[in-house]
């Protein structure tokens, strides 16, 4: 019974925030904070109590750590079906944590229409939790599309007014159209899958467990896999379809960037692991080399473009493209170690990107610019923030001792056995990573100062957020075992699907 509450809490909390605006500006913030804390605590409680050795795997009916089902649209065999396994709980805990942080980081930044802002923020997070829990395909798509609307409002109404020709509304619209259009392609693929299943069995259903047993011809499987892949690739983002991401990040308010980088991108990786690979293992195995090379390309291209940016948020945005490239390689490698690494990388990137965006936001609140050319010499002018930026930049380049190192290392070790060349080239991404991370620090915090006036230091709230993230990132770096244990069963399932198909493909050649 607890699963629907994970979704309902943010939605109800959002409505309360909206209505509480008439009680003053502070009430909505506290309601939002309480809501997110409740979500986070519930997530932690589930993590500590549920049995995550249960996860879907090929051959048998999927098993779940927790499940909830009520009929919804009987005409199409659609039910409100939620389920939890190790992968989803990790993502939900991350969502809860970043939810708390995104409320905190907007505490001073957002000063108008506060109730409506928090309504949108809460509903994004509710939609994301829905995506991580839904195992009815219709329901999954429902949440997938639904979270776009509040995100659109967040960027369009509270975003930064950017440079000419790149307004926040343009960025928000671009984000919406990219994701929605690719989502419709996935909807077509979902319907086609359901109808093929219907023609075989006479049962019209959108249920995950039933659709796993669909027999597909090779062509159909490949096309449907592409339909899913396109939707996930846009959200991922994979390079040819990534162009919405830097724009959206640059214009979004800090909370929007934190959610976008921290969790919205993860929904795509989650979707690939939960749906695309298990439904279409053979086609995915055939497609794997292409996907992995796309990942390599994203790593290098993201890193190069990141290096060339003058806008600090765009720099971090492109670095996300680069980091998610590692996840893409890991997913299609079909190797247990790499897949586990992907999960750690997703968590670590969620934490480090969120921290970097929060730091960017704090800089922006003080300097009112995101442009490197107007920064420089900040190290002398303010305490704490430059040093912490250096820490997270180091984390982003994969310094040992941080979660990012564990993630990238596991991914590279695991993938090397499967695709050595891909791995070798992807590993150069780490070098590029150091280049753009350090240049960011260098340009912003070192060099000649624009003026000598000291800048206001970090408030306890701001410092607390960043230090928490730093502590968690180090914890994940030195003791990732709990995360690995939790995701083990889920990743083993994915690995079995994928490696069976890969072996079959290898023997056929």
């Amino acid at each position: 019974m607890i699963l629907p509450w994970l979704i309902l809490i943010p939605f109800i909390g959002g409505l309360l925030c909206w209505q509480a605006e008439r009680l003053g500006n502070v009430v909505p913030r506290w309601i939002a904070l309480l809501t997110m804390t409740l979500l986070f605590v519930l997530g932690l409680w589930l993590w500590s109590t549920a049995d995550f050795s249960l996860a879907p795997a090929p051959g048998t009916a999927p098993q779940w750590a927790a499940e909830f089902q009520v009929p919804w649209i009987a005409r199409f065999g659609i039910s409100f079906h939620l389920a939890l396994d190790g992968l989803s709980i990790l993502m939900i805990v991350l969502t809860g944590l970043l939810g708390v942080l995104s409320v905190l980081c907007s505490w001073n930044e957002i000063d108008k229409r506060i109730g409506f802002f928090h309504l949108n923020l809460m509903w994004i997070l509710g939609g994301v939790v829905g995506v991580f829990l839904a195992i009815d395909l219709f329901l999954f798509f429902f949440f997938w599309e639904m979270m776009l609307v509040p995100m659109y409002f967040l960027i369009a109404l509270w975003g930064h007014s950017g440079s000419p020709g790149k307004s926040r509304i343009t960025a928000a619209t671009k984000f919406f159209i990219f994701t929605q259009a690719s989502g419709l392609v996935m909807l077509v693929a979902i319907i086609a899958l359901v109808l093929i299943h219907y023609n075989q069995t006479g049962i019209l259903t959108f249920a995950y467990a039933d659709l796993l047993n669909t027999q597909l011809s090779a062509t159909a499987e490949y096309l449907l896999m592409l339909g899913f892949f396109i939707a996930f690739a846009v959200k991922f983002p994979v390079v040819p379809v990534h162009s919405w991401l830097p724009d959206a990040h640059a214009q979004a308010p800090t909370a929007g960037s934190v959610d976008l980088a921290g969790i919205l991108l993860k929904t795509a990786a989650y979707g690939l692991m939960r749906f695309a690979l298990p439904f279409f293992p053979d086609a995915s195995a055939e497609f794997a080399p292409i996907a992995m090379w796309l990942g390599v390309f994203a790593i290098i291209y993201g890193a190069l473009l990141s290096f060339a940016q003058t806008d600090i948020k765009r720099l971090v945005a492109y670095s996300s493209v680069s980091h998610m490239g590692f996840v893409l390689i890991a997913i299609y490698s079909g190797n247990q170690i790499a897949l586990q690494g992907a999960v750690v990388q997703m968590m670590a990137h969620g934490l480090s990107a969120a921290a970097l965006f929060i730091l960017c936001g704090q800089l922006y609140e003080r300097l009112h610019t995101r442009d490197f050319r107007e920064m420089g010499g900040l190290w002398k002018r303010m305490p704490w923030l430059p040093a912490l930026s250096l820490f997270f930049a180091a984390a982003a380049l994969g310094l040992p001792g941080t979660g990012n190192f564990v993630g990238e290392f596991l991914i590279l070790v695991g993938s090397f056995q499967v695709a050595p060349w891909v791995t070798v080239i992807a590993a150069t991404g780490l070098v590029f990573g150091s280049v753009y991370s350090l240049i960011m620090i260098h340009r912003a915090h070192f060099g000649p100062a624009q003026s000598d006036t000291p800048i206001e230091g970090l408030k306890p709230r701001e410092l607390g957020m960043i230090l928490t993230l730093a502590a968690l990132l180090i914890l994940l770096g030195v003791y990732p075992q709990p995360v690995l244990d939790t995701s083990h069963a889920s990743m083993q399932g994915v690995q079995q699907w994928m490696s069976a198909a890969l072996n079959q493909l290898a023997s056929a050649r």
Partner: protein
Amino acid sequence: MEPLAVEITSTHFMAMLPLLITAITTIVVMLAIALRRNHALTFILTVIGLNAALISVIPALGVTPIEVTPLMVIDRFACYYVALVLISTLACATLMHAYLGDHRNPKVGYPGNREEMYLLLLLACLGGQVLVSAQHLAGLFIGLELLSVPTYGMVAYAFFNRHSLEAGIKYMVLSAAGSAFLLFGMALLYADAGTMSFSGLGVSLATMGENLLVQAGITMMLIGLAFKLSLVPFHLWTPDVYQGAPAPVAAFLASASKVAVFAVLLRLYEISPATDGGWMNGVLTVIAVASILIGNLLALMQSNLKRLLGYSSIAHFGYLLVALVASEGLAVEAIGVYLLTYTITSLGAFGVVTLMSTPFQERDADGLYQYRGLFWRRPYLTAVLTVMMLSLAGIPLTAGFIGKFYVLAAGVEAQKWLLVGSVVVGSAIGLFYYLRVMVTLFLVEPNLQRQDAPSNWGARAGGVMLLAITALAFVLGVYPQPLLALVQGSVLG
């Protein structure tokens, strides 16, 4: 040819109750106007009549399916669409009442005679009901003209306004041309088949095959109907008429009028297998793709909300054609669901325009700039328009998503990949202008006093109707099962 032995029993009367009640209401309203001109009284009589007609659909359902004269058949399909036409007429009537002005203060609002509008509305509604029950080309034509002719009057009702008059005349001329095409097509079909009933046509064409006469006839009929549905390339009148017509009339044009015409097109298409041939599907596919793309592209840069909605309705009927071409399995159901969701949505959207233009002034509030920052002045009205825009764009949590889902499902089921592809592309293009409207509502306004809805809009009949429609659009988006069950029961038997 068998002799036409028309026998009318009480069962037939039962089946015809909605039509009869609407007709009686029309006469009562006419007499009431003759006796005493009173806006409020006329409105109340109209609403009572329409509600009674709506309720009488329930007893009519009990005797379906039944042939009432060779011209009409009342089956579950007809009942569903009769109800849909009645509901949208009812919604338009409440909007008109708000729009034309307060009866207590004749200086504010529409300056001329207000009461005849309801008369025209009732007549058009009757035409719509005949149309959806037609099973004979003569019935089709009677219904279509009964629907169209009063609409000319409604569009030009504000005749002292240049735009309204222009729209009325334009609509009349083009619509008459469309009717002429339709009639000629019917004549050609009759010349070939010797019968005018839908099923007779179907049988005759199935046995005798097609020839040039039939093809010409079907094509001309299609042109006539495409005019009424404003499908590309017969769409040119739509934006002008939508812009010129008073807002509640535009709501009627977009909802009841189009629903009725599409329903009869569907019946014709399903019953006469003549239309099942390859070339016909080809033509309809081209029209559908063109309507979707051109409708959406032309809407992109519109700064006039009524024109924008006009173009978007072209695109939406393109989506509906996708389901019509798919024409198997889910298709009929998909059309039923889509028409309902589209009706709700366009009533809502035009409803907001109407209330913003209330009471009647020289010019409707249709410029997009007039909606800038509406959220900070009329938050709930903005919520209504936001839901409607999301619903038109087909975003989850709104009824429009269920409609779009159905259309895609019908297209995929029939494996019409070109059409499915154009729905996807069309929706992506459409998002751009729906979002543009939506975000305009929330932008902070410069300090300018503008035309706004009356501050107590929510307490009036039109406002209550609008809020109810919004709730419906939301509920259907979240829990559509009751509607789906209803539509599933009213497919063509």
